[in-house]
């Protein structure tokens, strides 16, 4: 019994340190087991780029696996303008853009909606410094045109947008723009994606403002506690 007082500090230390030591050992052990996926990512190969949106083909890396398609929703075609006339069945008559535009001279300088009239008056336009005829084809108003003057169909609008918005197109091709529905794993099922004009009005492409739709109501949030 007499020896104990001298050992008191040591005893206390053990009492304190023992749990600590054990915790440390096991924490270390746990850390050793962990895989570091950041490292794995850096080592892995290059992205194959555009391939991932190519449809129905077999990729070299996964030779025997059939890949399902990425279905990109397409615009229906050249827009039709609704007139005030009705046809026999009571529907409004629609006309193609070219119906009017073939008879009018194009104004290559116009960059402002103020100078537009008839169907186009009141249109919102906010798309940088491009003019109407940067994209609309003055040779054939039922199609669009690329920067080099080559015509492009309304249904292929992404090619047109992609000329200027290359980074977005690249992101899009890699699933990092535009969102998706369906399967992340194309070996198991198809994917559906929007095209540019599904989300962006080409004349005013900024994504629209929204009202938040949903808010979890955590307990007591309304009564005693609120957030700042």
């Amino acid at each position: 019994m007499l020896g104990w007082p001298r050992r008191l500090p040591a005893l206390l230390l053990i009492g304190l340190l023992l749990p600590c030591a054990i915790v440390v050992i096991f924490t270390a052990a746990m850390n050793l087991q962990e895989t570091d996926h950041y490292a794995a990512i850096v080592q892995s190969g290059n992205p194959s780029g555009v391939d991932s949106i190519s449809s129905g083909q077999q990729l070299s890396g996964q030779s025997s696996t059939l890949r399902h398609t990425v279905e990109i929703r397409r615009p229906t075609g050249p827009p039709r303008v609704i007139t005030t006339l009705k046809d026999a069945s009571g529907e409004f008559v629609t006309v193609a853009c070219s119906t009017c535009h073939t008879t009018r001279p194009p104004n290559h300088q116009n960059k402002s909606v103020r100078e537009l009239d008839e169907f186009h008056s009141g249109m919102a336009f906010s798309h940088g410094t491009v003019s109407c005829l940067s994209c609309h084809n003055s040779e054939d108003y039922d199609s669009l045109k690329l920067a080099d003057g080559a015509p492009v169909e309304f249904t292929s609008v992404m090619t047109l947008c992609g000329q200027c918005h290359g980074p977005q197109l690249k992101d899009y091709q890699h699933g990092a723009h535009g969102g998706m529905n369906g399967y992340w794993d194309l070996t198991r099922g198809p994917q559906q994606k929007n095209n540019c004009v599904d989300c962006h009005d080409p004349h005013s492409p900024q994504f629209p403002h929204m009202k938040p739709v949903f808010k979890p109501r955590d307990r007591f949030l309304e009564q005693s506690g609120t957030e700042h």
Partner: protein
Amino acid sequence: MANSRTDAVRSYPGFLWWGLGQATNGGLSFYVWMFVLTAISLVGANAWAHQVAEGMILTNMTDHVSWGLYIANFTFCVGLAAGGVMMVIPAYLYDDEDMHKVVIIGEAVAIAAIVMCTLSVMVDLGRPDRFWHLIPVIGRVNWPVSMLTWDVIVLNGYLLINLHIVGYLLYMRYLGRKPNPRWYVPFVFLSILWAISIHTVTAFLYCGLGGRPFWNTALLAPRFLASAFVSGPAFIILVMRILRITTGYSAPPGPARTLIQIIRVSMTINLIMLASELFTLFYTGGAHSASAKYLFFGSHGHFGLVPWIWTAIVCNLVGTALFFMPNALERGSIRIVACVLCIVGIWIEKGMGLIIPGFIPSTLHEIVEYTPSLVEWKVTAGIWAFGFLLLTVLLKLIATVFASEKSGTALERVSE
């Protein structure tokens, strides 16, 4: 007398049964006391039953403040249990004769406190019916990684050790035999280590969480120990005073003085650590101090905990000052007031002042405040009442055994 008794009942269960009978004997005021405690326990049990049946929705805890009064109270009770060791150390390590006579009171307090801890955890569970999942072998415990598993193990271990020590010593006395040191001294030393580790592990429970900056400090475990060595001895001093008033048993003045010396040192250390903690938090500022700012001064228009913590600070400071008055060493009301103040101060400091602000602001820095619901208060009161019930029975049993062995003087040296 003793001989005829040893002939009659030799078995340990028999002794326990006899003890229960003795422990429930008493005067009218004793019965009133027991009746009131039972009634409060029943109110608590009923509130808990409702909570289990209808869901934890009856508490005011939320996904933001996911631990509340129960765990706060748990933390305090662990300290209480660990504090009993401050009688064991002088008695066994320093062979303090007088302390030896009353050390069993500390052990009884430890037992009652551990039972309160276990109950506090129990009522905090969303699925108490699955409690068996925590039992090694039949359940599936995440040992050694989870600090909570450690805590469950060390708490139950501490309970068993103390039950063994107290039970063995009393039984030997009851049989009129001399306790064999081989059978309890090793356990006493184990219990010293264990008492320190229950509180260390309980502190690790909180300070191991990196996502909670307010808890994530190396000072937490030492602070827990220091405050435990205040609240434990203070509580024991109160118990001895109550014993003196109700049973007339008057302990030698030495142990209480030793305890007060211990309190003086521990409380000073506790306050120094608190101060250095606060310095680091407030001088550095930044995200780490968000909880402390909310706790002490309120933030973003929320002041829920401000009255609590300042009450605690005032209680602690005044209590400490009183303990340092020279006549705190004499019998009198000063030390009693000081004990009560320190107990209240530490209860708040470790509960509403430590557990709750760890959750406010939340990990996404949302401020959702917390005040315990009526159900929580009822259950907590029930746990305390049950703890007192248990403590009363234990002390009664101890007094009876001691008194019956040697009539006249009551509590006596337990060993040697």
